[in-house]
């Protein structure tokens, strides 16, 4: 399904300061509230306070307002949305973040940096417009590409936007994609990768068919082309449907795009940045993680810190003080083994099927060994040990006689009315009759014997059972024996079968109660118990160590995030300061000039200078 890419913000704190006069609160369709001032026509997600004690940069304000007015739902719905303001449509880039930090700053965790908690630190993919292209032949329409690679069309005159391309625009988009591809191949020719002399119409078809292959070779631009050729196909099939229905059909594709987003960003960070730089619009500079990291590093250098030190200084102190239990190599191996034990993994399976199953991958302890090779080694060692252990166990426990279930089965179903072949045919599907451990001949013999004995008088059967019980040694049958776990020597005897359970069981119980207790019971020695206790302790220790390591990592991540947002805040402040300084300087000069020239400046020019850029 197409999920909303909007991250629902936290509910505002319970006690909210009153809104300044003229401001009203509203709910956006996505469920979070925004604030609108009828007087200034501003709207913002951040709650305005009556006496603002912190300086809210006007640019930021404007951007937030802009965002609220135009795309309050952050492209989460598929229906057309109308925008009021149009000219260079989508510009805000870093302000998505700033809003978040503003909201969360009320929750605690450090002033400007704000910082998100560990939980919400994992950012959901946030979509936002990235580039705008003119569509040849349909002048008011522009094609907008979002950060996640989705595309929609926007009418600059009417302010309408559609995920699903209208039919007239569609042709323009196809044309645009063709041109884009052509450009791409021209570049390819420049590199000497070979010429493409296939006629264009044909190539169009080829790209429709073999777009998957292309995706691997060419990067972002070609991907746009590929998705473009996907979209016409979809639209053809859906021609004439309302856009709402489109949500179900196209959701998968969009989902796919969202998933691949992160990897792509990691891999192609630099190239993307370059693109935004070369974009013709005068966008504010976008700061992504790389930039921030770079800035932080630069700041660290300024202060004469070694690379890495500026980030880790706090953490190292912390680590020294509250150092957790060390996690050695044996511990990691043992952790992995613990995990295998806990999941009840069958040691006879293969490593591949284990991985394919995926159960253990979700376990935290899977990450204890660093490499898959190490994991595999531990796995093979573990299987060897485990199999040996299993075999030992099996040898220890008495072998279950395969005849016991068969005899119980006989007791239940055998009647003198059926001959053996009839009985066999009737119950051939039963597991007891199919068991390969008991041969067919034996089965027949047992059946015949049992049937013959059923015809004997009850008194004979009783005396036979009594004789059988007496014949059993005291070590096999004694007072501690229960009816549920009778010795196999008794269970496999034909004399035991002959009587029906309601007569037989009281007889046996009576006999057991007269018996003396078992001769000597050999339990676990103290040494073994000690060993078990030690192992349990070790396991607990390892679990604790892992937990502490995890916590340390979390702490570090949180700290980095904090530093990052702090750095970001500082940067922004500096920027604002710079701008303010520049504006003031010009203004001062102008007023000076105006004073000299007789104070007849046109007021319009003055006003334009007054408004911050």
């Amino acid at each position, binding site marked *: 399904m197409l999920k909303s890419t909007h991250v629902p913000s936290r509910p505002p704190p319970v006690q909210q300061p009153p809104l300044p006069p003229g401001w009203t609160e509203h709910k956006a369709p996505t469920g979070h509230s925004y604030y609108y001032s009828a007087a200034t026509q501003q709207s913002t997600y951040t709650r305005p306070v009556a006496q603002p004690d912190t300086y809210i940069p006007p640019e930021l304000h404007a951007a937030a307002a802009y965002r609220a007015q135009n795309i309050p739902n952050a492209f989460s719905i598929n229906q057309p949305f109308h925008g009021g303001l149009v000219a260079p449509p989508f510009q805000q880039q870093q302000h998505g973040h700033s809003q978040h930090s503003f909201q969360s700053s009320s929750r605690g965790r450090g002033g400007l940096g704000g910082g998100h908690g560990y939980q919400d630190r994992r950012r959901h993919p946030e979509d936002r417009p990235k580039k705008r292209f003119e569509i040849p032949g349909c002048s008011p329409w522009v094609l907008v590409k979002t950060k996640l690679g989705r595309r929609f069309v926007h009418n600059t005159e009417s302010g309408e936007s559609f995920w699903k391309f209208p039919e007239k625009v569609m042709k323009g988009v196809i044309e645009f994609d063709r041109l884009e591809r052509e450009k791409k191949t021209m570049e390819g020719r420049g590199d000497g990768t070979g010429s493409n002399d296939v006629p264009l119409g044909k190539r169009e078809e080829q790209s429709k068919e073999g777009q998957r292959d292309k995706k691997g070779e060419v990067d972002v631009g070609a991907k746009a082309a590929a998705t473009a050729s996907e979209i016409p196909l979809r639209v053809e099939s859906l021609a004439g449907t309302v856009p709402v229905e489109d949500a179900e059909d196209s959701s998968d594709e969009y989902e796919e795009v969202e998933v691949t987003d992160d990897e792509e960003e990691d891999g192609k960070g630099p190239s993307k940045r370059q693109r935004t730089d070369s974009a013709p619009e005068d966008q504010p500079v976008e700061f992504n993680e790389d930039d921030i990291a770079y800035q932080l590093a630069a700041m660290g250098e300024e202060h004469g810190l070694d690379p890495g030190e500026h980030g880790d200084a706090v953490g190292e102190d912390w680590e020294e003080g509250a150092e957790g239990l060390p996690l050695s190599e044996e511990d990691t191996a043992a952790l992995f083994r613990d995990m295998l034990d806990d999941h009840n993994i069958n040691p006879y399976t293969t*490593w591949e099927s284990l991985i394919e199953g995926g159960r253990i991958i979700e376990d935290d302890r899977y990450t204890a060994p660093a490499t898959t090779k190490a994991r595999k080694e531990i796995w093979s060692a573990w299987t060897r040990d485990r199999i040996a252990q299993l075999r030992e166990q099996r040898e220890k426990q008495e072998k279950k006689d395969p005849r016991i279930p068969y005899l119980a089965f006989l007791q239940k179903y055998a009647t003198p009315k059926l001959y053996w072949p009839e009985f066999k045919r009737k119950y051939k599907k039963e597991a007891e009759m199919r068991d390969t451990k008991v041969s067919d001949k034996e089965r027949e013999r047992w059946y015949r014997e049992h049937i013959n004995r059923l015809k004997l008088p009850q008194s004979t059967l009783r005396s036979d059972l009594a004789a059988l019980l007496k014949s059993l040694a005291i070590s096999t049958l004694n007072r501690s024996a229960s009816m549920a776990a009778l010795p196999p020597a008794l269970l496999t005897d034909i004399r035991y079968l002959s009587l029906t359970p309601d007569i037989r069981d009281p007889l046996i119980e009576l006999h057991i109660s007269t018996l003396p207790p078992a001769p000597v019971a050999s339990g676990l020695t103290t040494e073994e118990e000690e060993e078990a206790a030690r192992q349990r302790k070790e396991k607990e220790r390892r679990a604790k160590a892992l937990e502490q390591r995890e916590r340390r990592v979390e702490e570090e991540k949180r700290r980095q995030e904090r530093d990052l947002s702090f750095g970001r805040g500082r940067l922004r402040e500096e920027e604002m300061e710079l701008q303010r300084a520049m504006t003031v300087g010009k203004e001062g000069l102008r007023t000076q000039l105006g004073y000299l020239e007789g104070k007849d400046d046109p007021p319009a020019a003055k006003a334009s200078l007054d408004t911050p850029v």
Partner: protein
Amino acid sequence: MPPIRSARTRKPPPDGFEDIEDTLLEFGNKMKDAENASHEGKKRHEVLWPIFQISHQHNMNSGCGWEVRVSWDEVLIGGVVISGSRYVYDLYYEKEAISKQLYDWLLKNGYADASLIAKWKKQGYEKLCCLRCIQTKETNFNSTCICRVPKEQLKENQTIEMRCQEKDPW
């Protein structure tokens, strides 16, 4: 006339077979699926690709071993392809998980190829993929398959093209 052994009358497999039965069954099912897949529109050699791929996967445990016991024509008419050799070999020789009795029974019943395992026990042949690759009589210059050449002795950028399929697609 020898007694006809049906599923009902056959002797039970040795102890321990229940443990590995599931895995072996899985191998067999996968292979059967590949064998019975439609060959419509495929070339003669393409038909075998999935079979080799599965065979390879099942034997990747400790090397590249996989083998075909039957000739190509036989495979095409539905011959038996053995794919569990490495698994059985590991269980018996590496992990010592199965008894000698069971190992022999597995070999006898075609769960693994005894002649290939015999090669694996020899030095230098530990990772032999199939017997065909060391069959010198089938090649023009009485040589082994290219996959037997150590990597450092191969020429730069020399690709290995084997008759028994690509060697290491991963």
